[in-house]
């Protein structure tokens, strides 16, 4: 609370490490935005990729990027950031043996890094890659040269350059941060107001609520809308709501991977399912807030998410009719797989049952889900994708429809080519065109049932002011106490 200038935040899941290079959890991302800076960052308002530790950058060619660093950036241990550190960081990530979480992704496009001067670095790409800045912004925090030489790490849990430094890390319990007073003042993230932050691991939502009410924590994130409604009605709690770049969708086994004779291979069946689900009601009553039904396979805020293909309004009658036309007047049995938002999955099941399908909801954990999905053993699944906070269709449409993706159940080679092309092009107009083509194709073929975009709910003590961001990742360095 304000009295000890300490913001206590609840985490639902425990972080296993505070090093972003070795974690992919969302909690890690939130934390990393406090403790680490990359060369770039995602502007919370525009969702554009802006220089952070970098002072400036230039695309020398389609595959060559030169970056100049700021000269006043310090690590938490006091050392200054230099080109050597950047080169060390990226070489470490590129090195296969380092086993960083993002290594595989970065290796996919980055060929090499060279030092051009004390504050100047050059990146050589393997191919034109429009998402290079995104990857640097989101997944590669800068590390001091030699950080990983000692296999056990130093005595400090983390030596970053972010506005906060890690003071204490109890695995599975809590993480204590302290404001880093030597943070470079010209950073867009400069000017942190709160001195201490504590992240407590409280897996249970009910517990989080109780703790919030009793003052044990100041901020709760990812609050289910019902809870947010209920709790915010109580005195002493404030509710904040913001956008989230995450979208929910249903994938249908159009390619017939799981079962070549699956009804899902019929276009009319897929269209029927699209018509059967009341996305409006689900987003209004269940997702709520700024959530909206989405017509295409991407988040409307994403670059390239513009299309004019067919839309499928809620129309159960039409759905039944289409089913009958496809040869299933009596419906058929179907296993719908899901691993999150059970309530929404149930609502979908209920809608599908209403048009005569016999749906068996298989709600499982992610590791089971992905095993089944990767083995192409699902007839239909409900999933969501957060695009890693990236406001670009490559992160949604691209990821789901390239030929070698396990998530791709369309079996559509041409479509795959289109999205791949869009990922290899720097030219923004060309990219827009390619995505429109792809999205229209997906809509025509009804490979997906795009459902809705999400919204983020926060619960906090009234003493706290917190600007909400557009990508759903809270920007805690901007948090402050109300006077």
């Amino acid at each position, binding site marked *: 609370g304000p009295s000890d200038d300490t913001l206590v935040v609840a985490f639902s899941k425990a972080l296993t490490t505070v090093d972003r290079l070795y974690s992919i959890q969302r909690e890690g991302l939130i934390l990393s935005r406090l403790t680490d800076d990359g060369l770039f960052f995602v502007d919370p308002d525009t969702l554009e990729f802006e220089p952070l530790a970098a002072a400036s950058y230039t695309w020398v060619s389609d595959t060559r990027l030169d970056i100049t660093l700021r000269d006043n950036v310090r690590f938490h241990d006091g050392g200054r950031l230099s080109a050597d550190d950047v080169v060390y960081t990226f070489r470490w990530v590129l090195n296969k043996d380092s086993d960083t979480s993002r290594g595989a992704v970065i290796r996919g496009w980055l060929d090499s890094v060279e030092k051009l001067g004390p504050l100047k670095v050059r990146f050589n790409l393997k191919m034109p890659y429009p998402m290079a800045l995104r990857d640097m912004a989101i997944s590669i925090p800068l590390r001091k040269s030699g950080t990983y030489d000692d296999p056990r790490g130093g005595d400090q849990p983390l030596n970053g350059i972010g506005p906060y430094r890690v003071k204490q890390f109890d695995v599975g319990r809590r993480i204590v941060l302290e404001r880093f007073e030597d943070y470079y003042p010209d950073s867009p993230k400069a000017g942190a107001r709160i001195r201490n932050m504590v992240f407590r691991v409280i897996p249970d*939502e*009910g517990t989080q*609520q*109780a703790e919030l*009410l009793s003052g044990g924590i100041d901020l709760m994130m990812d609050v*289910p809308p*019902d*809870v947010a409604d*209920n*709790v915010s*009605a109580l005195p002493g709690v404030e509710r904040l709501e913001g956008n989230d770049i995450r979208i929910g969708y249903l994938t249908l086994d159009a390619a017939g991977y799981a079962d070549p004779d699956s009804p899902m291979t019929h276009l009319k069946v897929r269209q029927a399912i699209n018509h059967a689900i*009341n996305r409006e*009601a*689900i987003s*209004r*009553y*269940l997702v709520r807030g700024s959530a909206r039904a989405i017509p295409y396979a991407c988040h409307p805020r994403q670059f390239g998410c513009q299309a004019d293909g067919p839309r499928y309004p809620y129309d159960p009658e039409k759905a039944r009719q289409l089913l009958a036309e496809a040869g299933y007047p009596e419906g058929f049995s179907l296993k719908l797989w899901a691993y999150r938002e*059970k*309530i929404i*999955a*149930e*609502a979908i*099941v*209920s809608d599908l*049952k209403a048009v005569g399908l016999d749906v*068996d*909801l*298989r*709600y*499982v*954990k992610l590791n*089971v889900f992905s095993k089944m999905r990767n083995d192409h053993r699902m007839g239909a699944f409900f999933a969501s994708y957060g695009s890693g906070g990236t406001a670009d269709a490559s992160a949604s449409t691209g990821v789901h429809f390239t030929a070698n993706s396990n998530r791709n159940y369309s079996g559509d080679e041409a479509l795959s080519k289109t999205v791949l092309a869009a990922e290899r092009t720097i030219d923004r107009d060309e990219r827009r065109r390619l995505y429109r083509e792809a999205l229209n194709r997906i809509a025509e073929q009804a490979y997906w049932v795009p459902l809705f975009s999400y919204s983020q709910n926060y619960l906090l003590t009234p003493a706290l002011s917190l600007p909400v961001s557009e990508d759903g990742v809270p920007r805690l360095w901007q948090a402050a106490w109300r006077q």
Partner: protein
Amino acid sequence: MNMTITESVGGNELTSEAEREQAQLGLTPGQVAIKRARRHPGLLVGFGILLVMALFAVLAPWLAPHDPYLQNLSLRLLPPAWVEGGQWSHLLGTDHLGRDYLSRIIYGARISMMIGIGAATIGAIIGVTLGVIAGYFGGWLDQAVNFLVTCQLAVPSLLLIMALVFVIGQSITVVIFVIGATHWVFYLVVTRSATLRIRELDFVAAASAMGCSRLQIAVKEILPNLLNQILVIFTLEVAVAILNEATLSFLGLGVPSPTPSWGLMIAEGKTAMFFQPWLVILPGIALFVLVIAINLLGDGVRDVTVTNRRS
């Protein structure tokens, strides 16, 4: 390893003073049991409640005011009718998807009983078979069974069940089989020791002297003497299975949504339990009443069928 489940279940003391007394009363064991049952309040109450709940379960389609699966998103989270904001058409309110809570609770009785009886039956089949085999044949078979029991006991059963359900996948059948397959130790221990005792009795020797095969002896001579005890354990295991299912569903590894299982309903209501407490309280009460009724019945059956020793 020692058998460690030692709670006594109606042991047949084959010789006792009181039996002689019974003999002079001229009642069959069944008649005696019924006579005692009539004066056993716990058993009567348990049986009564159970009867009502079973009726509800069987007649659910006619008794439930709504379809338990029918969602109405605009009527979500209504409180019970008597609470402000409630509606009389939804006596006990609605859940997250606007489904009628009363109907779901009524259907929940079905699920619970089905799973309870199913799982207890499977457990009984496994446990009794193994118990009789181990007790009657002894030797390495006994050792093997003993090993199984140790495995079963040494791993926390809930953990085992969760792992199995997790890996196999959630469905009512899986839950029944997994709970059943992990709840046979009690049957086994009791039937094994009873078999060990009975196999030494002279009527077993008489049976083999008249040319009965071992199988005939196990099935025709020994098994009938275990039925009382099996019945008692069965009732108690039904209760255990019901609680297990609820716990599993509560932890998210029981029957799949949207099946109206009480445990699942509690789990779903849990996030809102400080604001819509009835979502948690009502299924809990239903569960409690059902289980207590079964336990009362089980205890009662034990009391009335136990061949009395010197009191």
